[in-house]
């Protein structure tokens, strides 16, 4: 692949700018901008349900040399607007003759601490890339999203040090027209604490977090409601 110039950050999270997907993807794209690439952002949820939005999405994809698809994992795969965007892009590219080499990179984040839970979602994006004539640039699996708290990533913060180091390394690979290296993917996909500790903390603090949110909404006494219980 020749020297890439344009990068598209395609966000699959319905939470938009305030999502972990955006924070992680933006960190990578900012690093690419430092290397003189020009970036553009697109949000799948806002584009896939209208003709104008679809046209804008496809034009942005056509223009990009690198597409960074940053999305959360929903129900073991991808949110429906992300899948819809992939269906539309695939349909569009099926009918065209590729005039340039374009690379697709995936970043998937999940609330669960185990990155292995993301493997199938990542494989689906890889299949999409193959079916749609993109060069596969590799995927990063970010577990334990609760630790990121939808805040901009900070290279100096212990919690995000490995993730940011991996993304920085990936930006070097991608800016030179190469797929992300194994080292970059592994580093970015590694938690800052042991998986055992992350799992224990998820059960403890994650569950407390749900109760806190419910209390803030005056819903704490209804947490176990079964509104659709048969025979009610």
């Amino acid at each position, binding site marked *: 692949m020749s020297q890439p110039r344009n990068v598209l950050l395609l966000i699959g999270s319905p*939470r938009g700018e305030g999502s972990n997907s955006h924070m992680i993807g933006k960190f990578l794209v900012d690093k690419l901008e430092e290397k003189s690439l020009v970036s553009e952002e697109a949000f799948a949820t806002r584009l896939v349900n209208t003709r104008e939005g679809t046209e804008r999405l496809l034009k942005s994809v056509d223009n990009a040399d690198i597409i960074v698809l940053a999305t959360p994992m929903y129900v073991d795969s991808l949110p*429906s607007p992300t*899948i*819809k965007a992939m269906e539309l892009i695939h349909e569009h590219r099926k009918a065209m003759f590729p005039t340039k080499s374009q690379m697709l990179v995936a970043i998937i984040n999940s609330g669960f601490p185990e990155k292995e839970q993301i493997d199938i979602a990542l494989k689906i994006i890889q*299949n999409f890339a193959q079916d749609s004539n993109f060069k596969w640039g590799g995927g990063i699996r970010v577990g334990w999203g609760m630790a990121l708290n939808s805040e901009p990533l900070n290279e100096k913060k212990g919690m995000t040090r490995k993730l940011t180091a991996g993304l920085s390394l990936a930006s070097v690979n991608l800016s030179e027209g190469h797929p992300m290296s194994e080292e970059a993917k592994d580093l970015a996909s590694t938690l800052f604490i042991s998986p055992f500790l992350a799992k224990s903390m998820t059960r403890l603090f994650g569950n407390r977090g*749900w109760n806190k*949110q419910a209390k803030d909404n005056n819903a704490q006494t209804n947490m176990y409601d*079964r509104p659709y219980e*048969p025979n009610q």
Partner: protein
Amino acid sequence: MKTVIFDGAKEGDLTIKAIEKSITDQLTEKGWEVEPLELRNMQIAACLGCFGCWVKTPGTCVINDDGRETTRKAIQSDLMVWLTPVTFGGYSSELKKALDRIIPILLPYFQSYHGQIHHKMRYKKYPKLLVIGVQEPGVDYEETFMALAERNMLNFRPPAYAVSVFQRAKDPKKIPVFVEEQLKKLEVIS
């Protein structure tokens, strides 16, 4: 006994329509009540990812559209069927928009299950689950599709489940036998 079918096909998908009809015919003959839902014709907005269904209105999605009905019908059925074209190894966006919205059938709370963190169950009883993907010729994503469905079973924990892929290139006359095999695996017909 009730069955709800989540039809995740695009308009004009004759193979999925034939599978849906065969399921309906075979179960109706055994006295089941079957309700196919053409998801593409329903008003189901995309999940907002807001977790309101867990911490604001526990058990009910905050979006008031057909997504609430699909969730209610799912939990009140004895058998839930998901039909979809195999889409890059996963589910179509039409099926997925309904599945993203049924997470209030689970609790938000985390627990260890099969060595990994998953959500706890909200209800005492869940339907059996049949997942059928229709695979286009020229690609082979069956392995990814089966693996995805297996992962879903860890989260939805149905009392019994069956997952299978039907090749679109196959003779449509084979559909009734294929469907019969799946329903027998679930012991909903003998």
